[in-house]
């Protein structure tokens, strides 16, 4: 079984590497953006699927990552402007972790709907600040994002968004996915699963529930920040639209569509949701109507998400074979 996973991983990696060479440039760009959202969704899942905390305001961290990159590239900073993508990622990780720690410390005192709504409140406050603090954030216009250097190399402008940056995004995605895999399979990851099932039981077997919930929140904030930081140079412009209750809702949909109790679920969900959205938008202006219907269909037919359904089928298949 393990060998099969390794073979599947190698095939997947090879496919992901050659894909930009065979698909139209536009789709390479779409794929890069999708990967950014997959990182965002993967991070959200440690909070939602693993710890059982449903947030309606997680786009706050996507915005913090994106705006950190844009702010550090502002011409006003003169010689202190940062163009190194590695430093920008580090800055996004630090800012999202700090904000995550502050907001999380307040939110994790509550669970269920209260937790969700407090987070929604925070993203609304952040969105309003982005709009109103015009001199810092650029208001509704937002801030421009320039081409960063990757590993000390300044990539050509012409192919940056449609080819070269894709590989950088893919590499970061692989690293953060591996890190998340390790977290999920650590005692800490197992403890989060126990907390999701029953926080009181987890507490009396020696697990500091509050502290672990906060840790999960900060990890998920960092992943949101990384997703936003990688997305910003692809977008070329960051605006308050990145941090709304709608983009916060998108990540919930990605998790539910892909399967919130499966490790690969949020990744599959991000690919499905974003690409479905893009394709429908090409055909009709009533894309939200079609997208809504599609979401209802998927949730009704695959209540455990695509990966949940697939995993059940595979278990049955291998069970029958054995």
């Amino acid at each position, binding site marked *: 079984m393990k060998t099969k996973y390794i073979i599947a991983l190698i095939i997947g990696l090879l496919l992901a590497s050659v894909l930009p060479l065979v698909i139209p440039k536009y789709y390479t760009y779409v794929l890069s953006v999708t990967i950014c959202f997959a990182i965002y969704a993967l991070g959200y899942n440690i909070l939602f699927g693993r710890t059982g905390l449903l947030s309606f305001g997680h786009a706050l961290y996507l915005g913090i990552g994106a705006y950190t990159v844009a702010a550090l590239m502002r011409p006003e900073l003169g010689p202190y402007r940062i163009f190194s993508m590695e430093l920008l990622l580090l800055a996004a990780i630090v800012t999202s972790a700090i904000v995550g720690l502050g907001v999380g410390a307040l939110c994790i005192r509550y669970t269920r709907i209260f937790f969700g709504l407090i987070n929604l409140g925070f993203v609304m406050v952040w969105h309003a600040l982005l709009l109103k603090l015009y001199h810092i954030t650029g208001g509704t216009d937002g801030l421009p994002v320039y081409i960063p250097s990757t590993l000390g190399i300044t990539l050509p402008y012409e192919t940056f968004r449609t080819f070269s940056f894709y590989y950088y995004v893919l590499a970061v995605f692989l690293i953060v996915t591996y890190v998340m895999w390790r977290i999920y399979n650590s*005692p800490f990851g*197992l403890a989060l*699963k*126990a907390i*999701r099932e029953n926080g009181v*039981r987890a*507490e009396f*077997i*020696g697990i500091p529930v509050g502290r672990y919930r906060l840790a999960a929140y900060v990890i998920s904030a960092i992943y949101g920040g990384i997703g936003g930081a990688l997305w910003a140079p692809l977008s070329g412009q960051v605006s308050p639209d990145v941090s709304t209750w709608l983009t916060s809702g998108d990540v919930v949909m990605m998790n539910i569509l892909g399967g919130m109790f499966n490790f690969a679920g949020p990744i599959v969900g991000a690919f499905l949701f974003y690409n479905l959205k893009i394709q429908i938008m090409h055909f009709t202006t009533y894309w939200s109507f079609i997208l809504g219907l599609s979401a209802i269909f998927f949730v009704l037919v695959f209540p455990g998400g695509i990966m949940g359904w697939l995993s059940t089928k595979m278990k049955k298949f291998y069970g029958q074979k054995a």
Partner: protein
Amino acid sequence: MALLELERVNTFIGSVQVLRDISINVDKGEIVCLVGRNGAGKTSTIKTIMGLLRPKSGTIRFKDEDITDLPPYRRARLGIGLAPDYRGIFTDLTVEENLQFPKWVIKRNRNQSGSNIEKEVHAIFPELDRLRKREGLVLSGGEGKMVATARALMLNPELLLLDEPLEGLAPIVLVRFAERIKKIREALGIAILLAESNIAHASRVADRIYVVERGEIVYGGSVEDVSRDEQLNRLVRGF
């Protein structure tokens, strides 16, 4: 000095007082039983000791340390293990995973490998090997209680709290489980405080008992004394 000492503990759930001036103690290696009718305050006492209910007044001392304000996870790390009345196991996790947590907790916090206690626990409950890969959801009532007790023991506690461990078990399983409780004390030398509504069940295992009625301790002493005293006997039997 007693291992556990509760002194004039008063606990409320909302505005309702569930424990009134509770004072009890448990010595090392002792099996003490809280006996009382349903709703008398046995589970509330156990929960207060574990930190799941916070007392409004009074003190709880464990190993001569005031633990009244400590959160449950700190009490667990200090050496108090709890197997609650509802099965209290994680139904999404396998038996093996359920038992993994305490092992990890003592490894991190007490620098103990946990392998010795693991061997002892498996010797007391040999059925655990067979149930290793089974999910908590599919366990029977007796199996669930066994896993919950084993999980509490994996913390390598000095005090084991068992809430209604014999409640709802089939007669043959009950006798076997009562024997296991005694075996735990013999093998590990730890103190056990259990809550039981049935005096006959309590008499199978306890060295001493406390009779709880309406949140108060109305008697503390031997099981034989309760059996001899008609008034007490009527009180714990509920008729």
